[in-house]
């Protein structure tokens, strides 16, 4: 097995008084795609948010090691610059802030962090245009405010566009497939597949199996009650689609 890019041990977290993660154990080796599935309220989004460093989530126990470093000790912006990308379930609208500007500022923040020079403006524009075409986003989206007036599907495609431009080492995509019609789902899946490489890893957080028809995961984990209750190969996703989550929850209980 490849070395772990992300290694989570006994992770507990809470929001206010509510315990949302209760002892997560997870290893994501470099080069792999892992799917995290589970019923509503199982802690899927909480796990994404804790990995991204969202304020309001308090880690009460456990460790998260990312590229050999303590992820939890890093500020959210440092995690991003170290190559962690969080795809939002609900990408926020930021009117007045140009979409391309945000992309460039994000890319340059990571490049500066790595001691690289800032990206050339023309090279950058070419890169973004090519990636936008892949995501079937019209060029006009690049000059609009971040997610401003985008449909749900456009927002998700914009998240994947950001990922393709930033080329993160680890992408955690929180329900990127929700709210997509079948055509948009294929576009998003194509984008995710492009991100696959032996040097990177992806964590797909999803409620349904349908994204996994297009992006074949190496491992599937089922989250319930803030814990991973079952891990297996891609066949588990199909089984969940047929049988639902109840049998697993009963098994776990």
């Amino acid at each position, binding site marked *: 097995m490849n070395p772990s890019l992300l290694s989570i041990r006994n992770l507990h977290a809470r929001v206010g008084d509510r315990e949302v993660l209760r002892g997560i154990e997870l290893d994501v080796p470099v080069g792999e795609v892992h799917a995290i599935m589970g019923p509503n309220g199982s802690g899927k989004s909480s796990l994404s948010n804790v990995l991204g460093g969202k304020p309001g989530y308090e880690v009460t126990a456990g460790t998260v090691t990312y590229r050999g470093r303590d992820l939890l000790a890093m*500020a*959210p912006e440092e995690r991003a610059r170290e190559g962690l990308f969080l795809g939002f379930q609900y990408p926020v609208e930021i009117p007045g802030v140009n979409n391309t500007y945000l992309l460039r500022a994000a890319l340059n923040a990571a490049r500066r962090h790595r001691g690289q020079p800032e990206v050339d403006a023309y090279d950058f524009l070419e890169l973004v245009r090519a990636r936008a075409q892949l995501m079937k986003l019209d060029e006009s989206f690049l000059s609009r*405010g971040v997610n401003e007036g985008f449909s749900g599907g456009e927002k998700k495609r914009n998240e994947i566009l950001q990922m393709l431009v930033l080329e993160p080492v680890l992408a955690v995509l929180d329900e990127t497939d929700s709210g997509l019609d079948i055509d948009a789902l294929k576009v998003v899946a194509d984008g995710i597949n492009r991100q696959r490489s032996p040097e990177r890893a992806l964590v797909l957080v999803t409620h349904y199996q349908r994204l996994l028809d297009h992006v074949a995961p190496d491992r599937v984990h089922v989250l319930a009650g803030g814990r991973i209750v079952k891990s297996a190969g891609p066949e588990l996703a199909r089984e969940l689609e047929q049988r639902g989550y109840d049998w697993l929850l009963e098994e776990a209980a």
Partner: protein
Amino acid sequence: MNAAVRPPVPGSLSQAAFEQRLRDAVMDAAPLLNARLLPISVRSAALNRALAAGLPQIRDDLWRYADLKFLGSAPWAPSPVAQDAARWQDAARALLPPREPDFERLVFVNGRHAADLSDPLPAFDAQVGPLVPERTRHERFGWLNDAFATDLVRLAVTESRRIEIVFVATPVEAPQAIHPRLELSVLPGAALTLLERHVGNAGENSLINAATQLHVGAGARCQHLREQSLALDAQFLDTLQVALDADAEYGLTLLQLGARSLRSSQRLSLYGARASAQIHGAAVAQGARTLDHSLLVDHVAAGTRSTQVLRCIARDRSRIAWRSRVEVAANAANAVSEQSLKGLLGGSGAEVDLRPQLEIHTDQVRASHGATTGALDENMRFYLLSRGLDLETARSLLEWSFLEDAVSRIGDTSLRRLAERRLVATLGSNVASEALQ
């Protein structure tokens, strides 16, 4: 509203002392006051009204948020100009903002027309009569501008013009009062794009008391950008009065970016049928500054329309107040009024007081208003941080996003671009101009 409400003027300055100070100022200023600009009868009547009105009272709802402590020591008389004129101009030259293409420029330094810094166009048209609007206690410091103004712009616009007027305040040794004054008429059918800027680094020993009067004639159009970027220790009193005739279209953008203590009284009167006013305002304060605004919009005639988009950002321990009152008269059937006021708090001691008010005397009216104040949205902030942006950049971008509403709808492209640039520059160097759409 709470215990933080301070009296506008310290108890040390009594009404009697204020009156005495004004009378002394008249004696000092008498040789400087040009009767050709404003007849002595007008000046004297204005002074008497100011004396009768006295200082704003603590309980006066129109003035309760203003920080007028500086009136305890403020001078009212303008400085004599002669010996300092050359020095003023040199200082002012360095403070002038870059030229805007296609605008004719007039520059005033410490209240005096500076011909050397201006384009060769007259600031004063002797054929045009004085434009002295009726004022109330809401505009009480306007009376003192009437009384003490040493120079002014008085023009009637007949065709289509783009004029920039820059009032520069430079530091002086002895305390001084500066009374910038604008009287502009846009004649029926004409169009004026007006860029009015108050800049400079005059500090605590200067009192700036500006008054702008505008009359937009029937079917005329006026786009007006008023930028106040004075030094952060400046003391600024301001009166704006605009009258609109039938079918006049007026767009006002207020950028309140400087001054330690600002009080701006604004009145827009929609006298003519179907006159319309679009008001955009953005105010940014930090430190312990106080920016107080009071806006009145009078819908006098039928079919008049006004919209307001006001955005305020208060950081640290600063305070921004904006009272915005719309009155719809009994004759103003089918008037339309929209008010959107929003405040953003950027510090635990910061305060934004937004007070939309509506008084309607007719049944046929469409009016809406909303006012909200809060801190930066945590989700938006986290989104930007999760893309690797640093805290300071994220904050600046979100503040820009918040203010953008107030300038995005400015019809004139060059004014809009300028407003955007000025706001972005105020919010911090981290927001590159590419962030603009």
